[in-house]
């Protein structure tokens, strides 16, 4: 019996929730097959991965006044 492949909307929903999921489950194998034939879902998946990568790569500026903050924490602790 031929298994019905998931629709684009199902694929998008799945990859949005399971971006880093195990790709060997039955559902993931179907998603993988869909992705092989669908440039739209591939483009969506890549853009979603890029979104996460950009936020991961965004390094915060160095922490300001580190020593002052440590000393404030010490003072607050002693006053407690």
């Amino acid at each position: 019996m031929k298994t019905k492949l998931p629709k684009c909307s199902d694929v998008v929903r799945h990859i949005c929730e399971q971006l880093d999921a195990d790709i060997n489950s039955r559902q993931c194998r179907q998603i993988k097959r869909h992705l092989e034939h669908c440039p739209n879902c591939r483009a969506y998946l890549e853009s979603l991965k890029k979104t996460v990568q950009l936020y991961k790569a965004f390094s915060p500026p160095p922490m300001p006044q580190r020593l002052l903050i440590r000393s404030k924490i010490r003072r607050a602790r002693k006053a407690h």
Partner: protein
Amino acid sequence: MSSAQQHERVEPSILRQAAEGDERAFAKLVHGYEELVYRFSFQVCRDRDKAAETVQDTFINVYRKLKQFDGRSKFTTWLYSIVVNNCLMKRRRGKLQQATLAIGPTEGFRDEPLRDEDGQVIQTVPSWKETPLDSVMNSELKSLLDKAILKLPMDYRIVFVLRDVEGQPAEEVAKVLKLSVPAVKSRLRRARMFLREQLHEYMKA
């Protein structure tokens, strides 16, 4: 290895000594975790002064509550809960927003895709351009990333940062926010979709 796992290295004996009032042990605790608290706070509030203030408030709370930490959860999970409470208090709100999140339609997306004469799907969803990451990320993009994430309701934002940026497992995120795992997954899915839509206009090739 997630950033939190990298920091899960302060010995349990240090935690115990700090809880008993040992000044040097507590200083070790602050030195060991201040970067994690600062980075997480910054990712959530996108403001370095507010993030630094959160570091201060968090460790004062840690000192007050450390005796209550029973070691049943990971220390980082407990610590994240305190940071989250501090972030929320800075917004003068006692609890998480229960806001809905409106996500716009995806450009070029059709559930019945267009096909060429051979039956091959024609790409209608634009690909994104190649963008260098981190050190050479331009200020326009940085500003866009800030604006986009600040539009997310706080509970969605915290889920996204903990799960995707800090690399915490969904189960730990659920414990920090006192949500169910399916609720965390649902917020994560919507947060990712929302941020992707916010960046799309700038990022499309």
